């Protein structure tokens, strides 16, 4: 029965060791999929390379379906899995600021560390920027504290929120993702570029 840490099957220190191993898997998969390339990541927003969309949504679906099946077989207790809380304004505001950072900087935090690990200097600069951005947040916290804590609506899952079931929402997510994959494949042909080769080494 999982999660192992919740059921005291592993110790707190073992949990940190597993965090390291999981991180290796995470970094390896990101890198091998080319997420260490800012032009590939940015390509998503111009249609010439939609790998991000394909990997990201496939992973989200596999995660959602995996959790669903594991809970059906009683392998995992879904009630012990952390669900991100929703503070409406800061979720939306933070998301918009992150989106601007993504298109200007070409990375997100996880991919920038991954790219820095293979020697991308622009990624290293991005990581430096992240530290500055977080420092601005922590130092200026009183300025946005109210906004940060506004409109708290608990930790709803979307299926509850829509009055639907986990299974139906997961199915819906799969169908939406298939539609987006189709658009992605189309976009890569439509917006292909001479100066950018897909799946380059």
């Amino acid at each position, binding site marked *: 029965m999982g999660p192992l840490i919740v059921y005291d099957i592993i110790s707190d220190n073992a949990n940190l060791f597993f965090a390291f191993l999981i991180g290796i898997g995470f970094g390896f998969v990101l890198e091998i999929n080319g997420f260490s390339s800012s032009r590939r990541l940015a390509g998503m927003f111009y249609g010439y390379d939609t790998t991000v969309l394909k990997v990201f949504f496939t992973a989200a679906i596999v995660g959602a379906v995996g959790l669903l099946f594991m809970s059906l077989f009683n392998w995992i207790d879904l009630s012990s899995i952390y669900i991100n809380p929703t503070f409406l304004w800061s979720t939306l505001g933070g998301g918009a600021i992150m989106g*601007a950072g993504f*298109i200007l900087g070409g990375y997100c935090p996880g991919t920038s560390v991954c790219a820095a690990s*293979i020697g991308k200097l622009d990624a290293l600069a991005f990581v430096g920027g992240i530290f500055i951005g977080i420092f601005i947040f922590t130092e200026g916290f009183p300025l946005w504290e109210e906004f940060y804590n506004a409109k708290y609506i608990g930790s709803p899952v979307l299926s509850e929120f829509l009055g639907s079931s986990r299974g139906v929402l997961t199915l819906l997510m799969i169908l939406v993702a298939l539609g987006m994959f189709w658009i992605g494949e189309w976009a890569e042909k439509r917006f292909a570029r001479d100066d950018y080769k897909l799946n380059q080494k």
Partner: protein
Amino acid sequence: MNPYIGGVLLGLVLIMAFWISGRGLGASGASKSVVVTAVKTVAPKHVENTAFYKDYLETHPNPMKSWLVFQMLGVLVGGFVSGAISGRLKFQVEKSPKITNRTRIIFAVLGGILFGLGSQLGRGCTSGSALTGMAVLSLSGFLSMATIFGTAFALAYFVRKLWI
């Protein structure tokens, strides 16, 4: 690698994190641990007198001994190993041929600043909030995903010179 197979692999890593540790993947949380630890080391007086750091250190007495910090150390190792196997280890600045290295670095720092700030406001970044959040079907996960990618799409045209 075929991106759909890559996605399945990433999903499996995510499931392992849920099954072992009861939580998903994340990236920005570790940077916050580093920032708080750095401020604490450089200016301990300032930390004692600032509510935000005091509250944070009360709930995280040892910020560097956190799940996300260990996971991010793993990301460095995993990325490096994959890069070494595929022959991609190289110091370089990656950019559109139309801009200089200097421009690319300036915008990378700027993007990092915005992403760092936004990830704190939004309580997580693309990994922790959007990817993990969507896998657990959390409302905030779908909202993060939509606003991060929506804003980037909306602004893409105006900064196209950076990339195409």
